[in-house]
């Protein structure tokens, strides 16, 4: 067997390892650039997800002040961790609205009572139609919407403590 050929596997392995090392070294980037960033929120009107809290429509998002729209569900595990972080954001003055995806009113109420409630308004998106229109493919996801109702930033996955500075910075930029 020729000498060069014998070293091919080793060379390929080195390339592969280099690629994987690079991948591990770059922090996992969960911000898939939203196709909708810079575009206005698509028009929608969602009914209230539970009694005692108003529903959510696209007009409610253009209030002159940046808002965080959080897509969540009572059946979503990471949302349980996330809601605590959102409560802390709320304590720092962030206005947060929720879209409950494929959820039942009693489950949403139970979730809010047990896990925390940072939301001003919650719309019920039974068929995921608004979620899809927003370009979100999973739960949870969050959007920074500026005062004119334009999407500025999409965060995929749960908002963790580590994401708080990014979210606050994006909200600041959206002012």
């Amino acid at each position: 067997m020729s000498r060069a050929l014998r070293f091919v596997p080793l060379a390929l392995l080195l390339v592969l390892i280099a690629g994987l090392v690079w991948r591990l070294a770059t922090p996992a980037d969960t911000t898939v650039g939203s196709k909708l960033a810079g575009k206005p929120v698509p028009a929608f009107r969602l009914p209230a997800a539970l009694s005692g809290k108003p529903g959510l429509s696209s007009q409610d998002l253009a209030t002159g002040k940046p808002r965080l729209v959080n897509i969540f569900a009572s059946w979503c595990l990471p949302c349980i961790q996330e809601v605590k972080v959102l409560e802390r954001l709320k304590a720092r003055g962030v206005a947060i609205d929720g879209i409950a995806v494929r959820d039942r009113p009693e489950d949403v109420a139970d979730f809010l009572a047990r896990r925390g409630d940072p939301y001003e308004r919650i719309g019920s998106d039974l068929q995921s139609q608004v979620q899809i229109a927003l370009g979100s493919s999973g739960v949870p996801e969050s959007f920074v919407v500026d005062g004119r109702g334009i999407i500025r930033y999409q965060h995929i996955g749960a908002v963790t403590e580590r994401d708080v500075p990014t979210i606050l910075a994006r909200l600041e930029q959206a002012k």
Partner: protein
Amino acid sequence: MIAEAGLAALWLAAGLAALQLVLAVAALRAGTAAGRTMRAVAIIQGGLTLTAFVMLLVVFVRTDLSVALVVENSHSAKPFVYKLAGAWGNHEGSMLLWVTVLAVAGAFLAALSRRLGERTMIATLGSQAALALGFYAFLLIASNPFARLNPAPPEGQGLNPLLQDPGLAFHPPTLYFGYVGLSVAFSLAFGALLTNEVDARLARAMRPWVLAAWIFLTFGITAGSYWAYYELGWGGYWFWDPVENASLMPWLAATALLHSINVLAARGALKAWTMMLAVVGFSMSMVGTFLVRSGVLTSVHAFAIDPQRGTFLLGLLALYVGAAFALFAWRGASLKEGAPFELVSRETGLVINNLLLSVILGLVFVGTLYPLFVEAVTGEKLSVGAPYFNLVAGPLALILAVLVGVGPLLAWRRERRPVFRLLTVPALLGVGALVISIILWPGMTVLPRLGLTVAAYLAVASILPLVVRNPLRAPLATWGMVVAHFGIAVALAGMAANAAFTSETLAVARPGERLAVGPWLVQLEQVVPTAGPNWTALEGQLSASRGDPPVTLAPQSRYFRDPPMETNEAAIATFWNGQLYTVIGKPDGEGGWQLRLWWKPFVTLIWLGGGMIGLGGALALSGRLWRSRRRRIAAEWRKERYA
């Protein structure tokens, strides 16, 4: 106490693995005979690791909530089987299972293998110890399964409901036996390359291990595919996602190895290639484990990514595969190829088989890692989906299936007989199937049509090796090969039929309403609440008929409390000619319910074929073991008699 005992056993085993490695290096350098000691050490090391794993099982069965892993993955209200399965349904536990299989396989190798020369045996056990040592370090430093939690919480967080299924409870262990069984082939190749003893004897020693690992992989993949089919509720059996590819790649390498090793055993040829495959097989297992465990390739919705673990696994991967490839490059020159062969021969057939399998392996590998490299180069994010894999792997797999009918008929070294005449009948059947499909279903797409054609041809061609000789006198290994090759035809027919003939209905139905799917009329009778040990559910009661007395089905939308999660339990009715697959979704709020119905003709053939492929392997393995045992007994008898 039990958790501490398990941890202690693990540390002791790691110490013994280090000792085993040191002994091997010393023995190889000084040329001393450390074989007996090393075998004993390997066996004790395997026993200790097994003890640690049993301790973990005990901790889970008792739901000991002072152990962090139990808290995170179990719950006192869970059924017994799933408490047990919870032990390996998580990162730490599954890595302990991985090490356990590695160490126990090493122990069996030490206890059973008598074919090898002393030096190669020492080098092999040394290599196995080096593998084990790395994974012990990984467990003890980065993934301790026995870590305590203080104070202990009153209740655990539960196991992902999707995993609470008998099929899945035993699916990971089966796959792990396969993945890690390949480590023995890796160590044997490494040892033989080190001592320059790559020969037919090595191939015969390696063959049962490869075969056994391959059988487990085959059954594991087949079972996993069926689990995905009925549990995920999407009606698909293979999604080409990274986790599935991680199990497919070692299988492809093992399948190629399984065939090339016969050439080495029978003819002393394909030495370098076979050693390469033996290394690649276990490397693919490690790559797969790395991809799944590091979170590098999971989708953007992956939540638990631990860079430390990923780095550790990558280091092990680079170390082991790098060492093996470097040794291969260094020793490759000294691998003298064995007996020559002509163009039309069994050897050529097996070489083509290997090339095709390797190309498919390469394509799946590239497809799986492609998104990673595109992102590294251009920063763009994309995913490679089923259309790519079907397009590139499908045609190659079909060509391979055609050759599966030819290869086993050819003689070693050179074929002078007119064997291709034997293939007239199968070829005519294939053409017949093609013509019939064109007449009956002109709209069918290309791949399913060719799939049906090749399946019809291969169903007959695969049994020719038994027809051309007296089937009762054929060795069990030949029977095994025929059963496995026939299984390919069966699975292929199932895949083609599923792709071509599936009918699907998605609709909202009110109780009393009827929906049509394929030849069936399905009526939603009513929706009732029901409950299980740790879930509540809404159950749709369906009655389906196609002229005969109706069949009742009860798909459920289940709601698990710990952890809170909803799953769809599909209800499937199986008939000789297909499956009726039903899923109930959400209510529309106005008295209607989402129903998804599929009629999938002959879909069961996919798993039946997969099972036959694995069964064929099992037949071949028992035939080989039986034969070598008989030979050994005969040799001992002769020795006694003439001593």
